[in-house]
């Protein structure tokens, strides 16, 4: 496996790990717990910073291993473009799904503690959408890096 493919796979792993931490902190068994706005903000910002630092370290390591370059080459940029496109498609689809969830929940109130009318529910849904898109993006990058 190339270092660029490894970077993509580790990126997906980092997102999945961060999301797993988020789910564990947010949920209480199978329901969404109550959290203060400060705790929610600290959790989201903390995870974003942790993921950002992880990516920076992974990228620097990948570049160092691959000839001490400082920028991506054109093949890697093409792979990134494919991955970004997949990520945006997943983001679009997930946003559409979120609208459907909100509408059906308004009609039948079936989301329970995950209801989007709760701050926790809304944050949970948005982070889930974002994590899904980011994980898909990196997995698509991994697959494209293996093929090209």
């Amino acid at each position: 496996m190339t270092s660029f493919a490894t970077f993509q796979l580790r990126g997906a792993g980092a997102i999945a790990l961060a999301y797993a931490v988020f789910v564990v902190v947010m949920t209480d068994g199978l329901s969404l717990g109550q959290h203060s706005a400060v705790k929610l903000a600290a959790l989201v910002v903390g995870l974003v910073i942790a993921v950002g630092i992880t990516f920076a370290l992974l990228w620097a390591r990948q570049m160092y291993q691959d000839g001490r370059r400082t920028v991506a080459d054109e093949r890697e940029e093409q792979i990134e473009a494919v991955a970004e496109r997949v990520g945006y498609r997943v983001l679009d689809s997930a946003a559409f799904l979120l609208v459907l969830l909100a509408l059906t929940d308004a009609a039948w109130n079936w989301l329970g503690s995950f209801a989007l009318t709760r701050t926790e529910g809304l944050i949970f849904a948005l982070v889930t959408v974002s994590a899904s898109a980011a994980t898909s993006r990196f997995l698509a990058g991994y697959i494209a890096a293996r093929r090209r």
Partner: protein
Amino acid sequence: MIRNILRPTREARGLTQADLAQALGVSRQTVISLEQGRYLPSLELAIRLARHFAVPVEQLFLLDITPDGD
């Protein structure tokens, strides 16, 4: 379909994939993918490759034309 003769051209000059990658400012994997025909370079990279080997672009990259002319 476009194929290339990058590998024999590189080997004839005694260059490694890493040497060529460094000279072109790309990753070694890009050179590998180019040689295996899995990646088509941009026009810019194709011209830079041709200049590096001091040969015309169409000598490095060959367009396979079917009997239908496609």
